């Protein structure tokens, strides 16, 4: 049977199988870079704090005294079991670091994505429709500048203007100490926990803290979205089907939305998957700017502490997340556009 419904599972299976070598290569790369290159990660991180005997114990616990090949195989094996090892500097499992800080990163990235979609997509459609007009030039320059501006600079300006000068939002952090004290961690996503607890002051507090970081990171993505949507609109607007729709006398709004925009969406969704990498990079910087207690800031902290094990664990996790999301996006694409499956 070669029906359309039969080929989709096959496509998904193929896509998943193709992912395995990619993940393996990424893991090997991270291992080679971080485990092989430096001399001794344990003394680099805590050498000045622990006695030689304790250092040797730590080394043995991390498996650093075993042959490199064995370390490599053990690393691959533990990643398969979702075990990313323990940090050296404060000796806690990476999975716990992820549990405690992942929620903050997730809250930030998802709300930034929302901001970027709501602002960027309509602006891109407008710019594409009215090519080379004054609005197009303004929107394009806005898109270029918002992508060109480093997130940490936009964040600093936002803090100066909206937090220090106008006092509308808090400068940094994710919540006041009172909220942290009151809300019991259940899902480890502070916003969700506050909502679940029915604590409206805490929800309001977290949301107020969220506005500036989310808009800052959202603006970065927004520039990319404007450019992508605009270019794809330019191409679909040239299509015969758009001309045919106009010839049949359909209202311009409908031509734009149902004909040009819908077809411009397919390449947009493909490239959306690639933006996860940009979103994560941006999150690392945004979190450092706003002192947002996410994984990105944690990564920077561990880099400062020269904690190779923690850096390796968090980077591995980021790499896996990026690959998994790109697979999901490809599958969604295959659902939208039947041409991809064949």
């Amino acid at each position, binding site marked *: 049977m070669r029906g359309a419904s039969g080929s989709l599972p096959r496509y998904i299976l193929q896509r998943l199988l193709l992912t395995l*070598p*990619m993940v393996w*290569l*990424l893991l090997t*790369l*991270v291992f080679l*870079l*971080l485990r092989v*290159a*430096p001399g001794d990660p344990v003394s680099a991180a805590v050498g000045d704090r622990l006695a030689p005997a304790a250092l040797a114990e730590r080394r043995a616990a991390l498996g650093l005294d075993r042959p490199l090949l064995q370390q490599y195989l053990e690393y691959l094996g533990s990643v398969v079991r979702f075990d990313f090892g323990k940090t050296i500097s404060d000796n806690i499992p990476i999975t716990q670091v992820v549990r405690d800080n992942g929620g903050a990163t997730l809250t930030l990235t998802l709300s930034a994505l929302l901001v970027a979609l709501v602002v960027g997509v309509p602006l891109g459609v407008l710019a594409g429709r009215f090519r*080379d007009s004054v609005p*197009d*030039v303004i929107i*394009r320059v806005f898109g*270029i*500048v918002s*992508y*060109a*501006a*480093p997130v*940490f*600079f936009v964040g*600093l*300006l936002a*803090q*100066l203007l909206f*937090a*220090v*000068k106008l006092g509308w939002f808090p*400068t940094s952090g994710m919540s006041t100490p009172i909220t942290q004290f009151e809300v019991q961690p259940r899902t480890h996503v502070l916003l969700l926990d506050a909502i679940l607890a029915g604590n409206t002051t805490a929800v309001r507090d977290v949301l107020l803290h969220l506005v500036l970081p989310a808009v800052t990171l959202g603006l970065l993505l927004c520039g990319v979205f404007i450019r992508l949507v605009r*270019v794809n609109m*330019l*191409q679909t607007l040239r299509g015969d089907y758009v001309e045919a729709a106009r010839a049949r006398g359909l209202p311009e709004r409908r031509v734009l939305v149902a004909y040009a925009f819908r077809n411009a969406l397919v390449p947009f969704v493909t490239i959306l998957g690639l933006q996860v*990498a*940009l979103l*994560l*990079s941006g999150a*690392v*910087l945004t979190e*450092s*700017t706003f002192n947002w207690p996410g994984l990105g800031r944690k*990564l*920077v902290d561990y*880099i*400062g502490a020269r904690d190779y094990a923690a*850096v390796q664990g968090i*980077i591995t996790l*980021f*790499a896996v997340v*990026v*690959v998994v999301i*790109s697979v999901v996006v490809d599958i969604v694409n295959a659902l939208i556009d039947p041409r991809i499956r064949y």
Partner: protein
Amino acid sequence: MAVEGTANGLTAAPSRTVRSLRRLATPVVRTQGVARWLLFIGLFITLAFVVAAVFAPWLAPYGFAQKSAGGVPFPKRGTPSGAHPFGTNDQFYDVLSRVMWGSRTALQVVLLSLAASLLIGVILGLVSGYLGGWLDRILLLLMDALYAFPSLLLAIVFAFLLVERLGGGILAAALSLTVIYIPQYFRVVRNTTISAREATYVEAARSIGANRVTIMRKYVFPNVVQSVPVVGTLNAADAIGTLAALGFLGLGIQPQNASEWGYDLKRALSDVASGVWWTATFPGLAIVLLVTGLTLVGEGLNETVNPTLRRRKLLPVQLPGPDGEPSQ
């Protein structure tokens, strides 16, 4: 012969350098309308920064790590004034001078890293695309893996390893950025090489007995290299941002080595709460301007090089008049 030929040769047939210069300028000359304006504005901004970078020692009022002039110490976090138009920062440094010296650092790092990634990427791409086979497969997989990785994280890992070994100077920062851009050149060059390999002119060259190296150098390379300027300018823009990001995270160029905008922004972070705006605003604006300028150049070039986006001036249709002469 060669010397004698120049006088006539220039008018009759331009020399090779002139011809290749003209070919380089074609995309700029052919631009139209808005694309042309954006391209020119971008070129202007970029050139302004190049001038600031090259002549920083003469243009900047002070050194990048100078705390006093003529025995008079600079104020700490001094507000912008006649002596310090952009103010001074928490380390008593003059912000205007640091912004100017910073453009020098940015230019050096970007040129170095782009040259390195171009060299590696183009060679690997040519070899991989032309030879094909298992080498191509492995390289493609490796490059895809590198490309899928968030670029800032990749740069962070390399900076983490290199800054300690090479010291936090220009070289370490440039090499940390190099890795990010290799996959892009590799892909562009490899894909165009594959399509060029099947082209008739390459087949013709092969049939008259040209060997692989000659074909790659003389037939494939000149056709492939046309798409590099667009990717190059856009990457330069990206590299400026990534360099600043590394500096902001404290992983880039260390302050004693050179002035770097990202590092200055990292220090400015603690000034914000007290309302000190000038230490963040000026280095930040420098990044935004330079990245915007480079992006405008890249986009403008892309609109003329990329046939799907290109818009050309329509030539007026000339109909033959009744007497056979063309008339409007």
